[in-house]
């Protein structure tokens, strides 16, 4: 499949983007928790055309043993893109980009996981991008923190992440693939709400100080929205079981 052509305009005259969104609008997000049976915790996210599956294992015995730390758990993170996740087949070997993202995602999660409760163990996070559409590191963080929570691993709070960027001179929220490729700048942000910590901040391209500040505010607002969705998705799994069970009881009482 050939590379999609560069669109003539990323924003039309009415200020609408190529996928019909306003500048400050997120792509539709779908979050699901606990969808893998064999993993200790799992989550799935769809954000625009992104489809990402995350599995968490642990805390478990550290292998190889020499990586274990005497005072806390080791958090290991692997971000990986499936060969079929992009237009042109991606070589399945870990790329420089994947290794970098694994590292920054790990660092953005490390600050919330209470690793000191499980010395000499590891917690493994596998982030598999099944379909990629720009902003997958942020979607990956959003899903990974959900999967960690689903595994029952003690953590300070959920991490929400979202990117902002600059397209045709305007700051725009949650860039899609085309906007990321043909836009002027990209600024992924991960945020921990209660502690008010930014645990991931990268920038690609050039922004003025004003643009940066405006972008950061937009990203943090979006993170707040996403954080609410995360909490809802996490609880939904248990509320559904509860509703079904209690409803069954009520119908039995009536019968």
């Amino acid at each position, binding site marked *: 499949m050939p590379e999609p052509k560069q669109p003539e305009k990323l924003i039309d005259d009415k200020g609408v983007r190529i996928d019909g969104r306003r500048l400050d609008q997120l792509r539709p997000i779908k979050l699901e928790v606990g969808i893998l049976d064999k993993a200790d*915790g799992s989550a799935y996210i769809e954000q625009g055309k992104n489809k990402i599956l995350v599995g968490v294992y*642990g805390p478990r015995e550290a292998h190889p043993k020499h990586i274990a730390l005497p005072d806390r758990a080791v958090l290991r993170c692997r971000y990986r893109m499936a060969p079929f996740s992009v237009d042109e087949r991606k070589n399945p070997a870990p790329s420089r980009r994947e290794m970098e993202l694994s590292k920054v995602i790990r660092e953005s999660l490390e600050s919330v996981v209470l690793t000191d409760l*499980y010395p000499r163990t590891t917690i493994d996070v596998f982030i598999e991008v099944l379909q990629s559409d720009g902003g997958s590191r942020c979607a990956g963080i959003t899903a990974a923190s959900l999967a960690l929570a689903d595994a029952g691993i*003690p953590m300070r709070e*959920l991490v929400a992440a979202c990117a902002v960027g600059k397209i045709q001179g305007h700051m725009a929220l949650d860039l899609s693939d085309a906007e990321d490729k043909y836009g002027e700048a990209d600024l992924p942000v991960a945020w921990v709400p209660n*502690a008010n910590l930014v645990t991931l901040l990268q920038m690609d391209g050039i922004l003025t100080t004003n643009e940066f500040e405006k972008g950061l505010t937009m990203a943090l607002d979006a993170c707040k929205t996403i954080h609410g969705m995360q909490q809802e998705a*996490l*609880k939904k799994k248990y509320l559904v079981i509860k509703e079904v069970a209690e409803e069954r*009881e009520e119908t039995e009482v009536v019968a």
Partner: protein
Amino acid sequence: MVIVAEPKQVVAPGELLAEGDHVLGDNSFKVGTKIFSACIGIFEVDGNRVTVVPLKGGYFPRVGDLVGGRIVDVGLSGWTVDIRAPYEAMLPASETPGPRGPRRRDLSESFDVGDMVLSQVLAFDRTRDPLLTVKGPGLGKISTGRVVEISAAKIPRLIGRKGSMISMLKRETGCQITVGQNGVVMVWGKSPENERVAVEAIYMVEREAHTRGLTDRIREMIAKSNVVGEVARTQTA
């Protein structure tokens, strides 16, 4: 002192539970005067104490816990046991009942790889792997009955408040049930059918641990299965 979250409800990590001088229970942490939840679970208030009872999570050993484990290795002076914790447990030969002193016989004569043992955590201090013992009444190799493995986080619910759930299960199904803190539950019944119903009930507790009126619903489920429990047996006798 203010309770912010609603008690008995599901809370997510980072959710504000209370503010002020409460006693911190499990899975909660304090920042300034605010108390937050550290995991997905049910928020419980007991007097001044705020706790989150987790809905998910593995087993973390504590000294004195009764645990069911599987032998994974036989060594010269003891066994390595998988107790479903992040650490491999050691069961030294000296912690088995019987005569003391050096033994020449092969340790696999007592327990072999794959055997299930019911044991107790003798020592564990996070810096070294847990140490087990099978000295004690009821401890040792499990060679009969059925073994059910459920999430260790659901064990408190399976036992219930002051053992209400587990004693009901034993009574209604007529089975002898031993609960390992690590999620390994052993069931001995007078017939396979009794065991089947008990196992089904245990899985139901695991699945619906966070719902209301669970004890009644399970009692009903057992009653429907027409299994003769202890009460009925004493009546017929």
